[in-house]
Structure formats: C-alpha cells, structure tokens
C-alpha cells in the first residue's frame, strides 16, 4: 500500500490543507480578475458554510476544531457560477460536506472529494445551472501548484499523470477534450478534484487505474457536447465510486502474488 496517507498523517492534515489552500489562491485570483469581485460574497458564504459544518460535527464529537474545508470553499468559488444564489450555494455546501466527509468521520476517512460532491449536487438540484467555464489562465495558475504539491508530498502524481496520458489517448474520440476551453478544466480539475490526496486511490497501481478511468469517463460523458466543467465533475465523481474497489482489487492481487512466492 502506498505510504501517501502515512506521509500526510506524518506531516499533519493541517499542513496539507495549508499548502493546498495556498496553491488555490492563484486560481482564485484568475476567477476574480475574469468575473469581477462578485465572486467574493460567494467565497465568503462558501467558506463560512463549509467550515461551520465541519466545526459543528467536530464540536458534537468533542474533537479538536479544524478548518480543512477551506480548500473545498476555494475550489467551489472557482467552479460554481458567480451568479448562483447564495442560499443555494450554502445549502448544497452543508449537505455536500456532510454527505462526503462528516458521515465517514471527517477528512481523511472517506473516499469522496467534498468539492466534487457539492458541485454535482448543485448541478443535479438546480437544473439549468452551468458550472463556471475555466480558461487557459486557470491552467497556467494551476501549473505551479503541481510542482509545489508534489514537492510537499501531498500530490498523488500517478493519478494525475495517468489522467493526462489518458486524456491524450482519448483525444479525437471526444469533442470536449479537443476544445481549447477544456484546458483550464483538465489541469485545474485534474490537480484539485481528481488528484485529491485523501480521495484518490491509496495503492500505486490503483492511482494509475483511477487516472485512466477518469480520462475515459471524461471522454465518454463529454461526447454529447456537455460543458467541460460539468463533465469533469461527473467523471471524477463516478471514478471516485470505483476507487475503493480498485484499491481492494490491487491489494487482493498483491496478496495472492505474495502467497505464491
């Protein structure tokens, strides 16, 4: 089993949160410069509701207070449309953080990325809502994050690499991947949604399979011409459901090989 979780545990969840949040700031900057300061109230509401949900559960469970979901709020401020009604964003954030993390005991215990779940909930709950389209600028702003997160040891880079290779392999099959606007989504989503250190596969081969599966699903789900951001959210969420199974399969195979040797 990969030592990713051990490594993160060694450095502390707080460290991971801090690095990730810092690496999201350039992307947030791009969103503010592109859609104006209208995103700031949304960011405030998202941050408040995400952290309030997390803290409420930790208070009830008599655990030390944390604010890991600050990263969830940052990611969502970039993903959600700026004009979304604030109460919608808040309601779905509370529901999503509860469903994806708190049910399992908090960050690091579950297998879902809260931001992915919340974005999916918004799309399903309010038909007609289109997620924000990310630009090449978002891709550029995310590039340094790849390096920083990898150096900090909190990036499951195999998943990201397999996803990138998978996307290249699937190019031509899907309209979504070939359009230029998909770049921002692919890079940003690949790093912050798919390659989540907690939600990604915990075995090395599992991470590779996860990346490939996400790329294949992205190509197929986007084939109908749906917008790239929504397609990626769907692909990552669907992949996430299979990730524990992939890990389990890899572990079983490994155990059989060990037993034979």
């Amino acid at each position, binding site marked *: *089993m990969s030592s990713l979780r*051990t490594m993160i545990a060694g450095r502390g969840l707080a460290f991971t949160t801090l690095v990730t949040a810092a690496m999201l700031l350039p992307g947030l900057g791009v969103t503010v410069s592109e859609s104006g300061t209208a995103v700031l109230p949304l960011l405030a509401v998202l941050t408040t509701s995400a952290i309030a949900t997390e803290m409420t559960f930790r208070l009830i469970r008599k655990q030390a207070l944390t604010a890991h979901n600050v990263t969830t709020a940052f990611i969502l401020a970039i993903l959600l449309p700026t004009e979304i*009604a604030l109460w*919608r964003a808040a309601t779905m954030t509370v*529901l999503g953080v509860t*469903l994806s993390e708190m049910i399992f005991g908090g960050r690091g215990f579950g297998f879902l990325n809260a931001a992915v779940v919340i974005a999916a909930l918004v799309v*399903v*709950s309010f*038909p007609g809502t289109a997620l924000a389209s990310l630009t090449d600028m978002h891709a550029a702003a995310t590039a340094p994050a790849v390096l920083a997160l990898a150096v900090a040891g909190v990036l499951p880079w195999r998943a990201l690499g397999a996803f990138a290779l998978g996307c290249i392999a699937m190019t031509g099959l899907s309209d979504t991947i070939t359009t230029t606007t998909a770049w921002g989504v692919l890079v940003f989503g690949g790093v912050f949604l798919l390659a989540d250190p907690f939600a990604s596969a915990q075995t090395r081969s599992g991470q590779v399979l996860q990346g490939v599966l996400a790329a294949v699903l992205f190509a197929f789900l986007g084939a109908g011409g749906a917008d790239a951001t929504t397609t990626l959210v769907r692909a990552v969420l669907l992949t996430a459901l299979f990730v524990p199974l992939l890990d389990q399969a890899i*572990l079983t195979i490994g155990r059989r090989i060990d037993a034979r040797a």
Partner: protein
Amino acid sequence: MAMREIRSALITNNPVTQQILGICSALAVSTSVATALTMSMALTAVLCTSNVIISSIRHHIPPSIRLIVQITIIASLVIVTDQILQAYAFELSRQLSIFVGLIVTNCLVLGRAEAFASRNPVGPSAIDGLANALGYSLILLLVGTVREVLGQGTWFAMTVFPLASNGGWFEPIGLMTLAPSAYFVIGFLIWAIRSKRRDLVERTGYGLRREELSDD
C-alpha cells in the same frame, strides 16, 4: 401491551429505519405528503387485515405452501385496496400508479405475515400489523414532508415557501424530487436515531481485517 408494541414499532423496532423493510415503496411515493399519506393508509389497511386473516387460519395452512397462501391473501387484499382507491380517489391513485399494486411485493407485509402472524393469535397479530404500519407511515410522512417542502415549497399542496416563479424567493431543490433524496433523508434519519440510541446500532458484520487496517 398494545401501547408498548406500538411505541416500539415507532422508534426502537421501526420497520423502515431499524428493520430496513419497505424501503423501495418509501422512496417511490414520498415525493409529496399526500401520496405518502395515501400509501400509508393503503398499507395500514392491507397489513392489519392480512395479519388478522393469516393468523386466524394459521393452523390450517400446510407449512410447505404457506408462502403461496400468504401471498395469495395479501395480493387479494391489495387488489381490493387498489380498486377502492381507483373508485373513490382516482387522481391520487393515478399519482401512486403501480405502487399500491406493488404492496404485494412489499417485504414489510410478507415479513410480518411470516415472522409474526403465522405463529401468533389473532389479537396480537392485529396489533403487530397496526404497530408496524404506523411505524412505516411515520417514516413515510416524515420523508414526504422533507421532500415536498424542499422539492416543491409546499406541504399538502399548501404554500410553505413562496416560489420564485410566483414572485416569491424560493427555488425548488430539484434533487428532492428525485428518488435518491429519499435514501439521503432515510439515511440521515437512521443516522440521527442511532446517534441518539446507541443500543440500536448493530454489531459490525464484516469488519476490516487486521492487515487491512495497518498501513504497509
């Protein structure tokens, strides 16, 4: 005795949240309170009557064909209920579509017939049927309330939140009209009940093995 039965079936031994029976219909008909209430009444009628009938002829049913006999009795009752609904509440019966008919396959009805009515006297069987039906109804109405209020902004078709399309502020949460939301709501209910009542938590059936818990 009767009151204790009923109280137990409402929370501690609730057919939906504790025995996890009748889930399929619970999610199908709980989009609005009106359909949930109709379904609850139909199920209560069927469950009480079937428990009484099966219990009263329990000594005359050969064990080898008891399931067939039970299903036949339940199916007959369901058909009667469905016909009555179609005659007197046609609109509602159209909204419930096949789900009244599907009470036949509702595991709750057959479950109580097999587990209780087929080996207990008529009186207790009637109470058992009523208690379980009330437990089912309670959950159905709760889920129906949550789903109708959040999904349509109404309760029993009365406005709770004024809709934006009618000049109000509320935009219905579309998720709540979809079947998965019933699972979410029931799941949250079970979670809340078991956090409050630790004694209702089952023992872990398939825990992780020691080597699965260790890291490397």
